[in-house]
């Protein structure tokens, strides 16, 4: 392509015209100028995250810039033998894709050469465990979340039998990996939904900065301590030895209503969440990771309102902690804007793909969600429209596929 060739021409030549580009037309010159880049920068595309391990990657992996959450359903719900086979195929493909080798039978292997920290994470939904052979292996917590008063759940974002969470810093790699993984098993699993999520592009900041959601809020500051594996990972001690190395995922799709959020002034926004918008510091502190002080007052009034999001979400017990790994979504508005906006209809279709991981969602996640449903100032501007729970399988090794501990009698 023209861009490639023009890149070899120095910028100085372009500016002084000595490269003779005039004859190539505006397009070539424009492309040449736009590819002025620093060659010393190491390419991020070659970075890999190991697929094999006792625990699946993609949970504690630093979130990649892009993720596809793919919900799939068994075409024949009772065909558990097929599901075991599907997991074998995915183990082969994920091992190849995450290493940059492509899947087996990869039809576009050139799209697999830059994994860009690609991870593939697989979960199973409750219905899988309804077949007689798996009934006894169902984790007690693997069931739909209770109905919350704030929910306006849409079937199209609902529970599925299987979840593929695919993350990469490169959206082209991500699209290809998603295609390969779904195409290779299409006679067994049908895609129900794809939730495309994004964060700040890799390289925009130094790595490790907390993301911002589309309300502009720093989102995901509160995380369990890194040494608290007991909050995150199953060790098989709860009567389900097969589950050692697994965890759970709650996936909530939360619409964020930009139209009404934009009506709110800045102090109102900060009081609703309990944090400043610029640094994400709690209103009682000055830095993002300062512990919020809910007792601190100013003029007799709590600096962090008791009804604010962080006050309501704050853990009331040690076990009310879970890993937050959210992504933004931003899709075309669903209400037609012409000839006139629909009354009450959003002119945006933005929100959060709120993925949380915890050892036991019923014990750790539900009490927090229940408090937020009972009251959270932010609820005025947000609506949960999708909800699903999955068991994230223990990891695969070179000797044992995903799901082997589940399907081996």
């Amino acid at each position, binding site marked *: 392509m023209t861009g490639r060739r023009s890149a070899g021409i120095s910028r100085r030549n372009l500016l002084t015209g000595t490269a003779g580009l005039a004859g190539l037309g505006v397009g070539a010159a424009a492309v040449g100028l736009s590819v002025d880049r620093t060659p010393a920068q190491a390419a991020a595309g070659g970075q890999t995250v190991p697929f094999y391990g006792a625990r699946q990657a993609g949970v504690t992996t630093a979130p990649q810039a892009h993720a596809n959450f793919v919900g799939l359903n068994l075409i024949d719900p009772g065909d558990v033998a097929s599901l075991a086979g599907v997991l*074998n*195929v995915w183990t082969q493909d994920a091992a190849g894709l995450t290493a940059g080798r492509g899947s087996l039978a990869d039809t576009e292997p050139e799209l697999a050469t830059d994994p860009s920290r690609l991870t593939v994470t697989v979960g199973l939904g409750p219905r899988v465990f309804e077949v007689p052979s798996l009934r006894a292996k169902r984790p007690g917590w693997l069931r739909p979340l209770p109905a919350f008063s704030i929910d306006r759940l849409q079937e199209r974002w609902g529970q599925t039998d299987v979840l593929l969470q695919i993350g990469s810093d490169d959206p082209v790699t991500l699209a290809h990996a998603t295609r390969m993984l779904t195409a290779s098993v299409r*006679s067994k699993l049908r895609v129900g939904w794809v939730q495309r999520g994004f964060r700040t592009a890799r390289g925009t900041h130094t790595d490790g900065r907390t993301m911002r959601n589309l309300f502009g809020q720093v989102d995901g500051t509160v995380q369990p301590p890194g040494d608290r594996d007991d909050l995150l990972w199953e060790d098989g001690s709860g009567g389900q030895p097969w589950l050692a190395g697994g965890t759970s995922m709650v996936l909530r799709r939360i619409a964020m209503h930009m139209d009404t959020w934009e009506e709110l002034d800045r102090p109102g926004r900060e009081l609703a969440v309990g944090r400043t918008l610029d640094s994400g510091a709690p209103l009682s502190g000055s830095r993002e990771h300062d512990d919020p002080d809910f007792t601190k007052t100013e003029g007799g009034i709590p600096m962090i309102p008791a009804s604010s999001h962080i006050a309501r979400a704050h853990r009331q017990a040690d076990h009310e902690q879970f890993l937050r790994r959210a992504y933004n979504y931003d899709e075309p508005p669903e209400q037609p804007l012409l000839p006139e906006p629909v009354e009450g209809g959003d002119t945006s279709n933005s929100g959060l793909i709120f993925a949380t991981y915890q050892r036991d969602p019923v014990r750790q996640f539900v009490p927090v969600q229940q408090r937020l449903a009972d009251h959270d100032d932010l609820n005025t501007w947000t609506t949960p429209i999708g909800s699903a729970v999955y068991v994230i399988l223990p990891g695969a090794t070179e000797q044992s596929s995903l799901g*082997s501990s589940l399907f081996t009698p």
Partner: protein
Amino acid sequence: MAIRRSLRAATILLSVAAPLLVLTACGDDNDTSTSEADQLTVSDQWVKAAPDGMTSAFGTFTNTGDRQVRIVSASSAVAASTELHEVVESGGTSTMQEKKDGFAVPAGESLTLKPGAEHIMLMGLKQPITTGESVQIELRFADGSTQTVTALARDFSGNQEDYQP
């Protein structure tokens, strides 16, 4: 990827514990020298899922020995007949045909069977080959030794060449 010779083929028809690469070398030859089967490792093997009729199997054959090995035939319980195929170009169209001399792999080299090139053709399927199912294929070598390869079936829309035996 590792070859797991210790697993017996009979135990792995629908195995989930170690499905990635399983093959069993059967020492048909009684002499003490290394058989052709022992010299060959098979990796990344797979078979295209098919409801009936015919389908193909693929993989990478690596000769780890110091002399050429030649696969002269293949067979599988799932197919009435099995042939070793190549794809040849003539007059701008590619046609698959049986490779009568088999697949030769020179010492220290690899041969990759892939769509649009060499492949193992399974014909007259006796049952559907469904995605995620393991299919066993026995390879027979020029020296009479055999090796059983277990290939996982997957959905794949390529390798559509129509074959009229």
